[in-house]
């Protein structure tokens, strides 16, 4: 149990990157990017977890109850928003790409080569 959550983190990242590299459809590729990013959520919350501790809300528990790390939760919230923002922008680019290129296969979205 000590390392298992982090193995899952590495797995999610690897799977997401695999999807991006092998993708033949831009929308699929964007979803894979979301997957790769979700590994950071699990990692952040994983490192801040404390066994047996409560959530960091002191509304109905005494003030000094051991609680898990609130900072990583705040960071994850920021991360979620950033991910949603980037995804929205990428999706709008995909809509335009479909219109201008007539395809969403990244291998055919090629305009200029070195």
């Amino acid at each position, binding site marked *: 149990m000590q390392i298992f959550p982090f193995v899952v983190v590495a797995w999610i990242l690897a799977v997401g990157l695999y999807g991006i590299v092998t993708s033949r459809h831009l929308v699929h590729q964007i979803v894979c990017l979301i997957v790769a990013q979700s590994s950071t959520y699990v990692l952040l919350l994983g490192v801040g977890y404390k066994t047996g501790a409560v959530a*960091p809300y002191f509304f109905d528990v005494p003030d000094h109850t051991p609680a898990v*790390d609130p900072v990583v*939760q705040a960071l994850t919230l920021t991360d979620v928003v950033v991910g949603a923002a980037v995804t929205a922008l990428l999706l709008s680019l995909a809509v335009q790409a479909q219109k201008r290129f007539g395809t969403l296969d990244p291998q055919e979205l090629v305009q200029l080569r070195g």
Partner: protein
Amino acid sequence: MTPVQRRWIFLGAIAALVAFYLWGLSGLPGFGNYPGPYGDVINRVAVAQTNATAVVSAVNFSYRGFDTLGEEFILFVAASGVSVVLRHLRGEQERDDASADWAMPRATDAVRLAALAFTGPIVLVGWYLAAHAQTTPSGGFQGGVVLASAFVLIYLAGEFLLFKRISPVDITDAVEAVGSGGFAVVGLAALGMGLAYLANFLPRGSTPGAVSSSGTIALISFFVGLEVAAAFLLIVAELVEQTLLARQEAR
């Protein structure tokens, strides 16, 4: 590279990368053993310092409020970016497309009724969440997203014209700017009083956990809620825009 070459190069590289990553991850103290000190110090002092019982909100809107400011502007920029990218689609004639059948059939009356029936309660929930950042698990961000999804429901219900009337782009734009700009200005107000940027200059109330407690935390949460709801609404509206035009013509 051909897809096959790429796949093999990638598989070799990712195996090495995962091994390397795991080497790093194995150096962590182990799941469930967060070592501190950051989170522990915050948990100890946050309630007394801010009168907010939801420590995550205190971190988001006070201790690390500056991060959240950047985050709100990322969302703001993304909404502007979506408008930039999609604006050329607007006005371009797509009459021939309007007749083609595509993946969003007209909703049945039952779906429309259900969706509309849910809209009211969802707006209420969104408002509740945005107003309780400082007490329970909630906050401007979650509330804003829920509010935006209420409008998406209106769209699902097929009430496009209503959707359009509720979210004319100009007004939503302005609301979004007020949300993100308001956040930045709350920080400036502190600066104007000779305090540090984003310092909590409002009275924090006497009871931790009351809706009126925690000073600027609640205020910032409100602005974040505005910004988030408007930004997602704008993004959805930009994506829907064309659909609206197509449907109107079909009627």
